[in-house]
């Protein structure tokens, strides 16, 4: 049992589970964000965000989420370093043509996503958490006006470009990660693996498009 934390397969298992958890989270987060562009009334989003920040269960979920992210990152770093050490001298003429394209850049796309996350947290999460956002009182309940924060940010072209670029790199990360996680879990089958690979593409396109459309629409509105 303890070897799950030390063996290579164990570490990969934890990474894939955390990864799939983050994959699910991305859909929830996207669903909430889409409220901003679906409804004209910004209070719909503000109320949803209020529930997300005040509900007890979701607060626990938040801790699990950060734990999952941390686990994913830490084990990725450990495994990556071990993998680099496993080949101390590189090939002079390496041709990784048979290595699936996006799998070669997982650590690079991950680095970009991490930088994005830091900026994203400064932009939105900390504001919501530590109360720098404007307050709106409806029926005696205080809501942070996060919808206006989003609109303010995405009226600026550089933010729109930066966010969309980050989503595209996230897509590169997901397209390999999604299907690789299933293989690590031991699910590889002649019939079902192609289905999972198609699902990975659909999921990636939906996530990248779903997140990207928000800044685009806000900018042109």
């Amino acid at each position, binding site marked *: 049992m303890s070897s799950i934390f030390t063996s*290579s397969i164990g570490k990969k298992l934890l990474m894939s589970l955390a990864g799939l958890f983050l994959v699910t989270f991305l859909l929830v987060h996207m669903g909430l964000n889409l409220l901003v562009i679906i409804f004209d009334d910004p209070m719909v989003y503000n109320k949803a965000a209020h529930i997300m920040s005040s509900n007890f269960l979701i607060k626990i979920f938040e801790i699990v989420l950060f734990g999952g992210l941390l686990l994913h990152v830490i084990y990725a770093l450990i495994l990556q370093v071990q993998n680099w050490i*496993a*080949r101390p001298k590189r*090939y002079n003429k390496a041709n*990784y043509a*048979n290595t699936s394209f996006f799998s070669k850049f997982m650590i690079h796309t991950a680095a970009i996503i991490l930088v994005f996350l830091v900026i994203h947290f400064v932009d939105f999460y900390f504001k919501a958490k530590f109360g720098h956002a404007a307050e709106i009182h409806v029926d005696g309940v205080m809501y942070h006006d996060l919808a206006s924060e989003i609109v303010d940010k995405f009226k600026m072209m550089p933010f729109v470009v930066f966010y969309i670029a980050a989503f595209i790199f996230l897509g590169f990360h997901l397209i390999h990660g999604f*299907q*690789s996680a299933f293989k690590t879990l031991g*699910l590889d089958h002649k019939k079902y693996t192609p289905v999972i690979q198609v699902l990975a593409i659909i999921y990636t396109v939906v996530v990248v498009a779903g997140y990207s459309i928000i800044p685009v629409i806000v900018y042109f509105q």
Partner: protein
Amino acid sequence: MNLKLKIWRQKDPKTRGKFVNYQLRDISPDSSFLEMLDVLNEQLVSMNEEPVVFDDDCREGICGACGMYINGHPHGPDTLITVCQLHMRKFKDGDTIVIEPWRARAFPIIRDLMVDRSAFDLLIQEAGYVSINTGSAPDANSIPIKKKYADLSMDAAACIGCGACVAACKNASAMLFVGAKISHLTLLPQGEVEALERVSKMVTKMDELGFGSCTNTGACEAECPKGITLTNIARLNRQYYKATF
């Protein structure tokens, strides 16, 4: 054919190696890659130079000894073959061919293109076997085995332990090799008895020997001369979880 060869030369495990360029003239397109290297070595010997050291044995494509990394591919640019089955007609006249040894921490270079693949032997010694009581041979078919499992086991048993999977993997991972051994032994009733003990031991040993981990890139499967598939890695994962939980 006239060729330019760029070959990794390294005197011994401790000395720093370097690439040396050689020119070869009038090589028959029908000669095998190893025969081409033989021609080069004869020329080197006649010039009182040290021949290029490389592993080879059966030259029939079944032993897996002739491992080298040719133009970015283990066993060269053809599929489902070892180096001895690679023919010079796969190259063009005037080509430059870069020949390197397998590169992995677990496969230290002995000399030139020859690497020490004892790590694979150690993995087999660790648990890659079936313990049986010796005695007279059992009756054939005394233990019925479903065709499906017999086939899967036989496919995995095709592994010749050449190390191309490790050489091809960007992480120098031995998961395809270990996966093949696990499938080969575990799918049969004789090997099933020790299945869980076997998988824990082999994975622990694999990590200890300094192989990398699997990131499901698919390079091993594509370069394997015996067509061992990635499903064996998934089976290895499943078996490992079964043994661990």
